């Protein structure tokens, strides 16, 4: 029995139970692993993580697959977070099995879509009218509105300039300010403007 768990007595403070200084603790490769005093309070039993050569690829695939436990997370994040979810470990095993069959990442994603429907993906495929609308509509609307706005202002600009030129008060024109002086004045105003 590991010293941490052996020392862990309900009601005792953490300091008394940590057992970090205990030399007789069983360590990996040096003896049996200790058993928890109460395994039922640490959630569902876990399987040892199998670190594979293609771990990064598996992680990338699972980050594109949605867990269906209601967590709104991807399979990798959900299964490594453990919202006591039983779906994501199952989906993980399916990914591993498909990978072991020699399927590519895209083939695995397609297999999930075939089995669970499009909701298995974290984001809809950017294909088809509806999905493409989903991706492009916001940026398209902003671009269209921006272009319309720029056009509107530019068209007004000519009219405003003409009105301004014809309405410019004579007394001001008689100020005989040089372009340099006007530029200095603009800069000074720019410095103090709110």
């Amino acid at each position, binding site marked *: 029995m590991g010293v941490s768990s052996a020392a862990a007595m309900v009601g005792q403070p*953490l300091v008394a139970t940590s057992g970090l200084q205990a030399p007789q603790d069983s360590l990996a490769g040096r003896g049996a692993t200790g058993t928890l005093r109460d395994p039922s309070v640490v*959630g569902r039993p876990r399987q040892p993580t199998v670190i594979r050569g293609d771990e990064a690829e598996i*992680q990338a695939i699972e980050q594109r697959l949605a867990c269906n436990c209601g967590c709104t997370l991807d399979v990798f994040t959900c299964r490594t*977070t453990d919202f006591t979810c039983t779906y994501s470990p199952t989906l993980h095993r399916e990914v591993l099995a498909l990978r072991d069959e020699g399927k590519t990442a895209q083939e695995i994603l397609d297999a999930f879509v075939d089995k669970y429907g499009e909701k298995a993906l974290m*984001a809809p495929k950017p294909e088809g009218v509806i999905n493409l609308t989903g991706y492009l509509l*916001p940026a398209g609307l902003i671009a269209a509105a*921006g272009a319309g706005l720029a056009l509107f202002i530019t068209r*007004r600009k000519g009219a405003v300039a003409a009105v301004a030129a014809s309405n410019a008060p004579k007394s001001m024109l008689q100020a005989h300010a040089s372009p340099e002086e006007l530029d200095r004045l603009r800069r000074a105003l720019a410095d103090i403007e709110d």
Partner: protein
Amino acid sequence: MTLLGQFALWAAFAIGLWCVLLSFSGRWQGRPELSATAVRSVYAICGCLLVASVSLWKGLIAHDFNMEYVWAYTSRNLPSSYIFSAFWAGQKGSLLFWAVVLSLFASAAQLLTARRYAHLMPYVAGVTSAVVTFFVSVMLFAADPFERLGITPADGRGLNPQLQNVGMVIHPPMLYLGYISLTIPFAFAMAALLSRRLDTGWIHAIRKWTLVSWLFLSIGITLGMWWAYVELGWGGYWAWDPVENASLLPWLTMTAFLHSVMIQEKRGMLKRWNFGLVIGTFLLSIFGTFITRSGVIASVHSFTQSNVGYFFLAFLVIAAVLAFTLLYTRWALLEAEVQLESVVSREAAFLFNNLLLVGIAFSVLWGTLFPILSELVRGTKITVGVPFFNRVNVPLGLLLLGLTGVGPLIAWRKASTSNLKRQFIAPVVSGLITLAGLLALGVRDFYATVALALAGFVAGTIVQEFYRGIRARSRMHGESIPLAFARLIGRNRRRYGGYIVHVGVLIYFVAFAGMAFKREQEATLKPGDSVEMSSPFGHRYRFTHLGISQYEALNRIVSAATVEVTKDGRSLGLMTSEKRQHVDSFKRPTFEPSTEVGIRSNLQEDLYIVYAGSVEGTEEAVYRFNLNPLVWWVWFGGLVLALGGILTMWPGGGPTTSAPRRAQAGYEVTLVGAGKD
């Protein structure tokens, strides 16, 4: 106490209806005594709801488990601070919290608004009372917080473990305060439309309220990110969850309003747009409430599904129809006093900024609703998660960041070529130097590189603005640099407070970019086993599993997995991640075991450890280790943003009335220039 609470709710409901009736009829019939009674009724509603709130708190503190709400959200062994926060932890209590806070805000608006806006106040009373009465009616007819059980259980079910966090004591009230206070600007906008007093008076009357709402929303969203990060355990702080999106929507439109209102104040433009933004922001706050409480969209943050969603949907539709119809009827009265003159002007930059902010809000709303729309149109269920939102919104967000740096550089009315050259050189050089530095360091992630380079550009803009302001003060008044800096901010809090807010936004973007380089690894470790990870900053971390200890705390049994951490061979100490099995006072489990992550934070990166579980009931532990770069800066960015917001709304210091005069002087300069050319 439940009888008293229920009586208080019914009284608030009756007085609320009375107030709505009096406030409108008093104004329309020209009977000031009715209007005065309506205003006094606002305080009466507030008093009733305070009594109801005290009744609920009394039940919570007294462990009155005969009250369904007390039984559902507390237990005898729940720590006191969470008994206090249980008030807003559940659907029913949070509705009461909303109603009482709104009635307090409504009373404060009546008390604190200057007398020159007295003509608006009866309408403001009517609108705020209508909203409060709606919330009270939801409680009375669908979600009674004072509902009694047939029996009195010996103990309650306890509070959801994820809500037993200090973040959940502070974050929901902050977010609620932001949401709730949005009703006040909305009420003033409606009052201005109803009274046909459509000058800038209502804008000045709500200035502080809009800033208060925006500030609370900002703090609430940042605290929400912090809570998600430390409590949910998935390793990040923003997942584009529908409820997170719902909080972001009104923040975006309110931010747009805070910019566009400046154009109305200075130039008399965008009147219709500003009314639209205030109305839209209020409706989005109700929409967010609908999403959170209806169960129409799955979210880990939402309340349990209930029929209150129908109430909110109906209220949302009615409020939208009434408000936009009213705006439509006043459309002709809201003509702009002047027109935009140039695409290259600060007004235009603000307009494009507004377009982007509202566009991003639409994009977030679109993504949130897209699964429903897709199912309606195609009959196919889809998931719209992080990849979708990132693909659609990150480019828009970067564009917005760029505009944050562009806006302050462009002159009002029309910028000349010389003005543009003079203004842009330093910020552009700053951005290019940042870009070159990033490329030299080997940073290749496209969006992160663009974000950081734009951050360099925006930083250049802000530093230049402060530098010029300080230099001008030093020259004109002979002040030392620290004194000139302090007075520069103190004398023009709105402008320089705004720049500090921009610094906060800039820090946010830098921190968000950091997450592009996060590292994560799973490992199953027996005591003594280690795992090593390299961080993006080049550090090498070693995590050695020491063991698992189990012990009892006040209301939970804790299994603590301890890891010894070294950084580049130097010991950093121990980190602990826990599994917590919460129990009631009879030691009966109340919820599924929850995870408490271990976090060690510094300016560069966070070490983030999740003890996911044990193998076969042994000390062999399954872990996820994350190295999350720059996360500390998210919280710091939130602090800077909040400080900038507080500075902006601090009383005095902002000569806003002289701004149009200065703008007029600039206009005359333009005319002289046009005349000479």
